[in-house]
């Protein structure tokens, strides 16, 4: 009973962390979307000029991926709280990987659009593949735990 209670409180704690991070991230990336729309509204050249197409693409990707990954983290938080199997020892990588993906992928896209070279994003975009790997590992771990 004690072990089960401990597992439950651990999954509650992890689940709560993902819910907290997910909802805050969702707020941040929705606000980023609002900012991007504002730049459209005010025709900000640094975002809309044809020479800044790369920045526009990168920041849109940051907004889209950030929002989506925030939802993924919320979904994982709910899963952790309602399906204890998701917290099995084999799925221990899921939480850090999903949190890492949430940080790395949108940051990589956003940073890659701050300084860029023609059609090539800046070097911070290298965070994106690292985040993509983390995301794949995290999602894979959760999926495996559901067998």
């Amino acid at each position, binding site marked *: 009973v004690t072990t089960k209670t401990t597992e439950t409180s651990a999954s509650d704690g992890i689940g709560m962390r993902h819910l907290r991070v997910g909802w805050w991230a969702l707020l941040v990336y929705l606000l980023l979307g609002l900012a991007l729309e504002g730049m459209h509204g005010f025709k900000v050249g640094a975002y809309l000029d*044809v020479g*800044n*197409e*790369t920045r526009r693409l990168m920041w849109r990707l940051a907004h889209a991926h950030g929002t989506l990954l925030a939802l993924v983290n919320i979904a994982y938080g709910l899963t952790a709280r309602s399906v204890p199997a998701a917290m099995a020892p084999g799925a221990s990588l899921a939480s850090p990987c999903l949190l890492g993906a949430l940080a790395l992928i949108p940051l990589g896209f956003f940073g890659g659009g701050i300084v860029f*070279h*023609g*059609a*090539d994003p800046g*070097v911070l975009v290298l965070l994106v593949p690292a985040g993509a790997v983390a995301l794949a590992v995290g999602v894979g771990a959760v999926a495996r735990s559901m067998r």
Partner: protein
Amino acid sequence: MVLAVLPFAWSRTRASAPAPGPTSAPRRVSSGEYVSSDACRSCHAAEHASWQRTYHRTMTQLVTATSARGPDAELSLDGDAYAVHRRGDEVWATLPPRGGMPASPRRLELSTGSHHYQGYWFAGQDPGTLQMLPFVYVFREGRWLPRRDVFLQPPGAVPHDVRWGSGCIQCHATAGQPGRDPSGSFDTRVAELGIACEACHGPGGDHARHYRDPVARYEAYARPDGARTSDAEAGIVNPARLSAERGSMVCGQCHGLTYPKDEDEWWRRGYVRSFRPGQDLRATRFFIQDPPATPEASPVELDADVWSMFWPDGTVRVGGREYDGLVDSACFRKGTGARQLSCMSCHSMHDSDPAGQIARDRTGNDACLTCHEDKRAAVTAHTHHRADSRGSLCVSCHMPRTTYALLKGIVSHRIDSPKVSERAGGWTSRPVACNLCHLDRTLAWTDGFLHDWYGQPVAIQAGERGGDTAAGATWLLSGDAAVRVIAAAAFGSVEATDACGTGWQAPLLARATSDPYAAVRIVATRSLQALRDRGGRPAPDPRPRPTLDDPAIDALVARRDDRAISISE
């Protein structure tokens, strides 16, 4: 069932479409060395977009119902009837009967010109040749005009029998190869129609292939700006990073009067194999500048018309050949390093208004003041004109509109100072900048001010020819055709209206509208209209003008220099 119906539907579609005409348009060869602007766009979107806005891009286009600016029209020339009409997305011209052949419709395949007027080409008799329609569509008037009239050429002169592949291809396309064979047929190829990226930056094939590798790209980003480490990178040239001499040669390949040193090679492959941006133009071309005292002394035998393109002092006077003027300028000849004038000192292809392409940060006097900084704080002391007036713009005095093309006066790119002493020799001399605004004043008047203000020696003594007649009037009615057309344009300029008001020019311009040269008539008519549109403006200088009554005008016309002048631009 479907399969049975399809061929019928196909044949119906084919039958309802206009019959395709024979095509002699140049073949677009976009492989290997030259890869076209499409390949540049994926990495250089901003530069591609800014180039898209330029008149260079649309200098030559395939004719479609929308790219052709001239509307459908019934036209007449020397009693022959012509017609231009659209068929679907094609544009066709009906030409008059020739040599027993009935009037024939020809598809217009190419257009040349993008800013002022558009000329049109159709398939000629020899395979691969394109001949020009004898009409052009002039944007300003919104009218079709005979081609012979928009060029400055003597009345009755037959326009050159131009073929696109033997002249225009050199500059109005990228990497043009005439492909002429001894039979007179052409297999003309271009990398791209119009003046595209590779015309100025060199062929981009190696560059594009090299930079498909992302590691190569990011490695280049990490290096100091402009550093090159491989042939593939060096293959692409940024004219702004070349020396003033070599950078200007990039523009000079088209904006200079040149003639190929190896004529046979040019007829086959143009300059595609022999010249790359960044190289010395003189290795492949003779420059026809500062003409020798006699045409016979030229390294090549040139058409007499070529010599019409220079002022007696050797300054080029045909527009579009600005390189010739530049290299004759002290700012180029005496400048060194970063202080040597180049085309890029004032112009930018990618950061400028398409009309004139003056770099955004080099408008007004800014280009000149980067070197002549001492003049910035003392503009009026130098110009003796109000600081906010056109008389205080460097170009007004040092780059007057003394070159001609496209039915207008264009600023001379031979940068120098107004001097009456060098121009008082006759009315075929290059007009003095001062009098291109102060048209109502005499050369003696100008001479006096240049003496008083700048210490120039007095060139015109009292009573001497030119001392008692308004210079503008004399140029307009007594000069040779090049002087007359430049004066006619000056009469309509805003600068001249500012300097000498309105209300006195009409009798002179009215006389110019009966000039023997059609181009002079057209330009004089434009100036008359411009003055009418501006309404009455008082002359800022209250001193009386020289008398310009009918007898005086008749006398000026009687002195007209009727030597034959041809400027076909």
